[in-house]
């Protein structure tokens, strides 16, 4: 029975994330279009059904599957294929520890959790796995044997490792508040009241984490590795067909994961504003079991929070210009890093004084 549940979770949870990717791509196209006062994609249709441009994603998939795959003659074949695989793999695997709803205690005393694995080192797991994506970008840049790709790969890896430090240090303050590295515990610790969420208890950590996650996913204003106007597309300039699709999907999946982690850490994860799990179970309508109703509402609210952060990614991209490289490095090392250490110190003193 337990094995069956695990198998179901292994199949359903990644489906959720994979289905968020086309939604995010659609959102990026539509939101950017409306920000620039355009209509955005609305031509592709199946039997006249356009779904406001969502069909374009299906067209994209068909196109990417059927395009010829070109590997440059001078490239290192093995690493050239390995690089996009690593990026997709990393984004895919990181979702394992994200909780979608509160745990349910079953009749036989077992605990059913709405996450693949409730690791007590969940946060560490996410940081460890997501930092693997540096390998993918470095390998892609190097193995293409293309000068643009090489420059992009160098820039990207250097930027990602710089901002990873800030990300890790911002998270330490959250750990100190929650007293646990399990994401479920961190979410539960925040409680249903919005002003108890970490975004208000740790505003500095929130902004540091958000900025660092934008740098980690190579999004504007930190999109120097891709910088289409200077190094065409950076590390994936030589990629085509399905390998490019893996990069593309991997990047968007990384954004979904980053949104989910930010929502869990700072915006109360599956916590429904003002309604605790018990309150939701009391409010459940007759035709649904109370635990199922509570889980459903919580998962919906969590998805809404994820989508909000996804929207923020797109919004920021079409609002802010790109940094210069020396500014980027100075911002990361000389501003965000000391600030993150300072935040840990303040959190420590605060926890000591206010019990």
């Amino acid at each position: 029975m337990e094995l069956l549940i695990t198998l179901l979770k292994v199949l359903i949870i990644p489906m959720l994330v994979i289905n968020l990717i086309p939604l995010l791509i659609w959102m990026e196209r539509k939101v950017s279009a409306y920000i620039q006062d355009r209509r955005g994609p609305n031509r592709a249709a199946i039997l006249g059904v356009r779904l406001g441009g969502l069909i374009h994603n299906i067209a994209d998939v068909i196109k990417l599957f059927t395009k010829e795959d070109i590997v440059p003659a001078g490239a290192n074949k093995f690493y050239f294929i390995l690089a996009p695989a690593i990026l997709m793999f990393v984004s895919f695997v990181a979702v394992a520890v994200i909780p979608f709803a509160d745990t349910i205690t079953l009749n036989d005393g077992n605990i059913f959790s709405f996450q693949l694995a409730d690791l007590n080192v969940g946060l560490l797991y996410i940081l460890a796995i997501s930092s693997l994506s540096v390998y993918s970008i470095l390998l892609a840049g190097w193995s293409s044997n293309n000068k643009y790709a090489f420059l992009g790969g160098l820039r990207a890896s250097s930027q990602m490792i710089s901002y990873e430090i800030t990300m890790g240090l911002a998270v330490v303050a959250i750990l100190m508040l929650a007293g646990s590295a399990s994401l479920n515990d961190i979410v539960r610790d925040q409680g249903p009241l919005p002003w108890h969420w970490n975004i208000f208890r740790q505003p500095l950590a929130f902004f540091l984490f958000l900025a660092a996650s934008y740098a980690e996913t190579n999004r504007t204003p930190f999109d120097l590795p891709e910088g289409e106007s200077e190094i065409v597309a950076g590390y994936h300039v030589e990629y085509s067909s399905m390998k490019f699709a893996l990069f593309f999907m991997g990047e968007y999946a990384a954004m979904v994961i980053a949104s989910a982690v930010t929502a869990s850490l700072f915006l109360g994860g599956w916590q429904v504003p003002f309604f605790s799990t018990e309150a939701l179970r009391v409010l459940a309508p007759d035709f649904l079991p109370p635990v199922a109703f509570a889980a459903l509402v919580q998962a919906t609210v969590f998805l809404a929070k994820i989508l909000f952060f996804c929207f923020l990614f797109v919004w920021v991209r079409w609002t802010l210009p790109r940094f210069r490289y020396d500014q980027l490095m100075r911002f990361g090392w000389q501003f965000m890093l000391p600030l993150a250490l300072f935040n840990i110190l303040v959190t420590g003193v605060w926890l000591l004084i206010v019990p």
Partner: protein
Amino acid sequence: MLFQFGNVLVFIALAVGFVFINLFIGQLIRPSVPSTMKGTSYECGEEPVGSAWLNFNIRFYIIALLFIIFDVEIAFMFPIGVVFKQWVAEGRGMIALAEILVFALILLFGLAYVWIKGDLEWVKKLGNQGK
């Protein structure tokens, strides 16, 4: 907890499978018409000169070194962060805070050193031109 890690392992296997099945299916249905011109690297229409595997700026190397030092710091801070509240409850909060402080300060001295040496400036001033 071991069962949970087992779950993650199954998930990792699935992810590897997913990635390679995607690549494999593409292999089956896409055309393959290689030619010499397609094989050249893309440089906005210019003829590529030489290989791209060149020497690169030493700055990237210094950043990588710095990263390793600070990443170890984070790895050591995680356990303290997790038990901090517990220690405060047991009345040993000052000790925990002092430990964090000493540890962070040692590394901050390192950061200050690199900062003053100018290695954090991307455009480094050389010799007498600097301060």
